[in-house]
């Protein structure tokens, strides 16, 4: 009974991603029937192409769900994609390490990235990038502290100089009082 239940859970897990896809596809299909435009004769309209694509997605994803529920586990993959392989036959020890996952690192890195994008408009590119670079290196299990802070500082200065002075990209300066700090950094680098 336990193994039947477990197998059912595994099958549901396997079908979960496809399930989300099909629900989303149906929602967008409904939206595609409601595009506003001036009808001209028997022309197909702006909704035809998206509906065609969404129809394909719905049909194929339903097939995937049915197969996942009937056969169980992950959807069949014939040969692992060449583009998805990270390191092939790189030695047993390395392969074991590559297979290990650290979900906490993923969550930390993800949260840091979201925070970076959110804060860049508030505290400015220079400050945000400096802390992000250092934080990301720590999240990546790098522990040479001097190298982390020096490379983050040098890297930030280099990027600010390159993109603002050389390439003329107007990166976010942030809002007061951080804006003032950013502009002070720029003036120290000779960037007007």
């Amino acid at each position, binding site marked *: 009974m336990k193994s039947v239940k477990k197998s059912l859970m595994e099958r549901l897990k396997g079908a979960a991603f496809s399930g989300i896809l099909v629900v989303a596809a149906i929602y967008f299909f409904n939206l595609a029937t409601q595009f506003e435009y001036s009808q001209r004769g028997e022309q197909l309209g702006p909704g035809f192409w*998206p509906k065609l694509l969404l129809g394909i997605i719905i049909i194929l994803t339903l097939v995937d769900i049915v197969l996942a529920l009937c056969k169980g586990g992950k959807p069949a993959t014939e040969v692992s994609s060449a583009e998805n392989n990270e390191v092939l036959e790189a030695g047993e020890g390395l392969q074991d390490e590559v297979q290990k996952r650290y979900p906490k690192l993923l969550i930390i890195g993800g949260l840091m990235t979201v925070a970076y994008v959110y804060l860049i408009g508030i505290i400015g590119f220079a400050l945000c990038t400096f802390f992000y670079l250092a934080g990301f290196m720590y999240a*990546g299990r790098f522990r040479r502290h001097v190298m*982390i802070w020096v490379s983050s500082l040098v890297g930030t200065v280099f990027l600010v100089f390159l993109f603002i002075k050389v390439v003329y990209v107007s990166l976010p300066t942030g809002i007061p009082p951080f804006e003032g700090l950013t502009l002070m950094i720029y003036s120290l680098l000779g960037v007007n």
Partner: protein
Amino acid sequence: MEILSHFVSGIMQTLSPVTFSLLVIGIILGLIAGVLPGLTVVMGVILILPFTYPMDTTNAIIILTAIYIAGTYGGAFTSILFKIPGEPIHVPLLWDGYPMARKGQVAKALGWTLYAAIGGGLLAALVMVSVSEPFAKVALSFSTPEYFAIVFLGLTSVIVLGTGNIRQAVVSLALGLLLATVGVDDIYGAQRFTFGTAILRDGIDYLTVMVGTYAVAEVISRLEHGFVSPNLEQAGKIKTTFPTFKEYRSRIGVFLRSTVIGTIIGAVPGAGATVASFVSYGVEKQYGKNRDEMGKGAPEGIVACQTAATASVGGALVPLLTLGIPGSGCTAVILGAFLLHGIQPGPQIFITSPDMVYAIYGSVFVGLAVMAVIGYFAVKPLCRVLDAPEALTSAFIMVLCFIGGFTIRNNITDVWMMVIFGLVGYFMERYHYPIAPLVLGAILGPIAERAFMTTMISFSNDWTIFFTRPISGVIMILSIVSILLTLAAPILRKRKRQAQSSVGQ
């Protein structure tokens, strides 16, 4: 004669101080991108794109093309020396290049790789120069059914030539095409999936999708694995020795076959160097004279893979410049560079800007020569790049991605979208949905829809027009046949296995 005179002036333009310097920088960056396992050549081209904004268009395209060319070669070093493929292109080199190195023939393996890269690249570039202008003249007569057929071929090729579950590849492709519909429709002016927001009214830029799903997803996936750094073996004295004339002559067939395969596959929209490399290796393993030795350190394995990979660059530039349709991921970024500089590649570019086109062609030849010199002397220092901690390089890659995403439209929303696509790309890989079709769909989607819908309007919804016009008909039928063969292949393989097992019993 006209092509020749244009070509010579293109070479002269490439040799001007600024352009030549940028070319050399591009070759070095491409080799570095090729060597670093966490950084693909597509990512390398994407990351440099923002730096090209203040440049002259020709110089911008030249530096990006140089990175592309060198990236198809750089990853070979680490495949041969350390069994670490710098690029997916170089996975087949693990099967013959590394064993050859283990037999004590490191220098020869590197020599074969360099010869294959330069030879394949030059031959494909010659084809590119000879074929482009005549093809562009023919392309001027193309109408929307022909454009749709070519794009359809590209869209189906990413499914046919890829590996993995076909259903999921088609879903991924359809998702990419769907992303391209967001915004204001070109033909009817209707707002689609904009949810009333200004940023979505401008649509989703394919560069955002590319950077997110390729670069950001790759980095966060590697972060999840803890940025494992490989313990590099002591490679000893690293040098390059070219094969002898006799050795080269005995493998001329492999070289020519691989060049043809690489050039043709490179020219097919959606396929690229990775597909070219694998297909060429596969063909040689199946039909080559020395197929029994392949997989054990045979030079044929190196030549087949590397020649096709570099030849695909010349092939990919043909549809980009003559039709405005990218032949690969890198050429998709190069298309983005053209558009950012206000130039639409296509057949008319040979009339409006022939100097630019031939300067780009000239840069391919000069770039290959520069690559030969740097590749010959700089193998060891390039491999030192692998000593850089991956956490450090990845942190900078992420920031460069954000800058790249921001500079597309100077809007932070594009960066948010890039992060979202990074997560999408990560989950797609986790659930075995291939990313390449999604990206290709996002790139080719606008062209595909515009060509299809315009055809329907022009020909009163008569869908058979795609099959009744000769050129589009042939291309459409080829595409459909290749899909059917791909679908039938597993069934035929299963029947063959069953027949073999019943014979065995």
